[in-house]
């Protein structure tokens, strides 16, 4: 019983996507809209293959990934430091939190004009957009993680004679880790949004650039193909890197439902 339900749940997601593709293919073959506006999945696949035989697609994927990774590392370093300051100092938290919450209401693409003014067309402009779109989420998550540490951990560590300066490394950061990883995951997604938004407006290579190129060439197949690529990359990285790490940590820290059922 359990085995068969496991198999059917493993088939559930692929069959959903298969159905979605089939639906798309059928509606496209009805030809209600011209195929340069509404391409079929086969058109999109063909266009992606063409792009793939050219170097531009691979260069673009590499360029976008590099931008997100570099921007994310910078943003995470800044976000963690600010978050720790917020989590340990009442006044810093009070002031920065309202500021960051305000910043989060700004769409990521809104940072692009400033980036162009400040950095011209260099990669630094894109890093800047990535940082500005993701840093506030990471700082807030870090601060919340620290502020929500069960006080009993701190009390136990203090009783065991942990010196004050060792508290951060030995207790505060590890205790806040589950929330912290959730924040990093959110930051990665927002950084990815930021990079593609910035590339749309100001770059000569990158997935965002290919999207914009598709618009200029009236090539809906390319636009949809690149959109799909962005979704697939986002999903894969989320599932296999951040999702996996988050799941392991939550399990170990005893925060998953699985443990509650067993008790």
């Amino acid at each position: 019983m359990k085995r068969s339900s496991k198999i059917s749940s493993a088939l559930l997601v692929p069959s959903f996507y298969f159905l979605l593709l089939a639906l798309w293919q059928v509606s496209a073959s009805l030809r209600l809209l011209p195929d340069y506006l509404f391409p079929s999945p086969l058109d999109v696949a063909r266009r992606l293959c063409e792009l793939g035989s050219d170097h531009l697609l691979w260069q673009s994927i590499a360029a976008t990934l590099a931008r997100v990774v570099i921007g994310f590392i910078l943003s995470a370093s800044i976000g963690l430091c600010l978050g720790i300051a917020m989590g340990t100092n009442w006044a810093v938290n009070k002031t920065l939190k309202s500021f960051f919450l305000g910043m989060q209401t700004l769409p990521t693409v809104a940072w692009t004009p400033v980036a162009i003014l400040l950095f011209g067309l260099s990669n630094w402009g894109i890093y800047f957009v990535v940082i500005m779109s993701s840093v506030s989420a990471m700082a807030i998550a870090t601060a919340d993680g620290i502020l929500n540490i069960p006080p009993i951990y701190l009390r136990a560590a203090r009783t065991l004679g942990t010196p004050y300066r060792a508290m951060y490394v030995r207790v505060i950061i590890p205790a806040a880790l589950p929330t912290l990883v959730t924040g990093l995951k959110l930051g990665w997604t927002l950084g990815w949004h930021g990079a593609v938004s910035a590339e749309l407006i100001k770059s000569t290579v990158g997935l965002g650039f290919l999207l914009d190129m598709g618009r200029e060439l009236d090539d809906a197949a390319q636009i949809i193909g690149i959109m799909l690529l962005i979704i697939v990359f986002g999903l894969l990285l989320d599932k296999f890197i951040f999702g996996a790490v988050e799941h392991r940590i939550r399990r170990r820290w005893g925060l998953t439902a699985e443990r509650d059922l067993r008790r």
Partner: protein
Amino acid sequence: MKLIIKNAAQSYEITPQRKFAALAPVSLEIEEGELVVFVGPSGCGKTTLLNLIAGFIKPTSGEILLDGKAVEGPGRDRLMIFQEPALFPWLNVIDNITFGLPRRWLHPAARRETARPLLRMMHLEDFETSAIHELSGGMKQRVALARALALDPRILLCDEPFSALDAMSKFELYLELQRIHRETHKTIIFVTHHMQEAACLGDRVFVFSGSPGRVVHEVKINLPRPRDFNDPKVVAFAAELMSKLGQNKEQRHET
């Protein structure tokens, strides 16, 4: 080593005019190697006195002397274990146990080596590298005990450590605590609201009563060890403790 509590009292200011007396002045002496129990209903000041001994709070008046020296704050010579085991989930069992050991000069492997005898003593050998979430409630509390004992404190302070456990784990840990006491000769101060637990564990039991919290009786329990929780003699002593608390309440109502 001798712990002397001299007229120690604790009160909190609710408003500048009104004060709440958590603990009326109390004096008692605890000898080295004694297993002493503070028992009483909630709000009777037993945990307050334990926190005073631990140094988490300072007495409003009076003093707490350890070997003639006043207790100024928390120290590694007096370790407390809590109702929650408060283990660190990011460390495995042995690294939790060695958490409090000085790190500057002890290599991790050497640190773990010092914890091995404790693991054996607490019957945790097979769980050395287990994650905390894999342990049962009773085992977690054993690890917490081992973590405190690893620092070789002179006094072990226990703040209702077994009250959240199931009955079977409790019975085991009552025997375990008595064995630890016999093998290590540590001074143990155990706080509980459970009379039978007090009668089972204590060499001496101080019965506390509330508003304001104070000691109303001191009872010596001369039963042989190890004592079983359900031994009729233990049950009889528990009844005696209960009646002492009851008498005290009646007297207060009459006056």
